[in-house]
């Protein structure tokens, strides 16, 4: 029987703080109809809160503090207050990458420079991650 592979419209990730393990998801403030990722940030203007879209490849966000284009932002966990900027440098602009732990296993990295769109997703147990994609997002389902 011919099987047709279907692609999901979006891939959303639930993320946790890599330091304390607490969920960073904010179910009360949606972006693109999905729970946002809530973080504390520090910019040249001071400290504030940013909410990132949890859809992979979506760059939408809201912030209560102004961020200048090209500025490097420090990201902190709102619970343990650890700095989430890492020593890994963005291969596009050399700014520190920011790392979040994936609820499904692995991590998502984004660039800390406003306007830089570099990002990636990493898995250790790739087979387990692929299973989740099939079961949660419907990848590979046949009709």
């Amino acid at each position, binding site marked *: 029987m011919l099987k047709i592979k279907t692609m999901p419209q979006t*891939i959303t990730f639930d993320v946790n703080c890599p330091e304390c393990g607490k969920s960073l998801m904010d179910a009360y403030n949606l972006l693109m109809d999905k729970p946002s990722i809530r973080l504390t940030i520090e910019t040249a203007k001071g400290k504030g809160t940013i909410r990132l879209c949890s859809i992979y490849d979506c760059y939408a966000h809201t912030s209560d503090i102004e961020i200048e284009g090209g500025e490097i932002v420090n990201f902190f966990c709102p619970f343990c207050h650890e700095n989430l900027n890492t020593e*890994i440098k963005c291969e596009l602009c050399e700014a520190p990458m920011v790392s979040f732990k994936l609820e499904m296993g692995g991590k998502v990295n984004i660039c800390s420079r406003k306007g830089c769109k*570099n990002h*990636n997703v*990493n*898995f250790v147990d790739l087979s387990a991650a*692929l299973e989740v*994609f099939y079961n949660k997002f419907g990848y*590979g389902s046949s009709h």
Partner: protein
Amino acid sequence: MNELQFDVNCPHCKRSLMDPYRMIHNKPSIRVNISSGDKSGVIRLCSIYGCYDYLTDVKLKNGDLVEFTCPHCKEILNSQEKCSECEAPMVNFKLSIGGMVCICSRSGCKNHSVGFVDLSSALNSFYHQYKYGDQ
């Protein structure tokens, strides 16, 4: 689950690192040059994801730090990223399907990961190349 085997390229010159003439577990091996201390030679890694088997003409002890270089362009493949388990530099290989595979450069450390930028394209490749999702 299907067995995942990756073809990898040098992240610098992009040339293939696969060696179809030396198989490990019936798959082409990944051939790179290595040095550790005053020793240098060739290592062939198993290309099956999650398999740690390799062949090398260099005597390595557990804990040795190893520098990996491309056999074509001679660029160092050890990166600035540190292993989260032992702090040794991670070694990057470019995936032919898109993305990167990282392994730890310390002999005996099993830390490794696979990363993607374009996740949808990578997942498509898994379905079509590895037949994931087929019942």
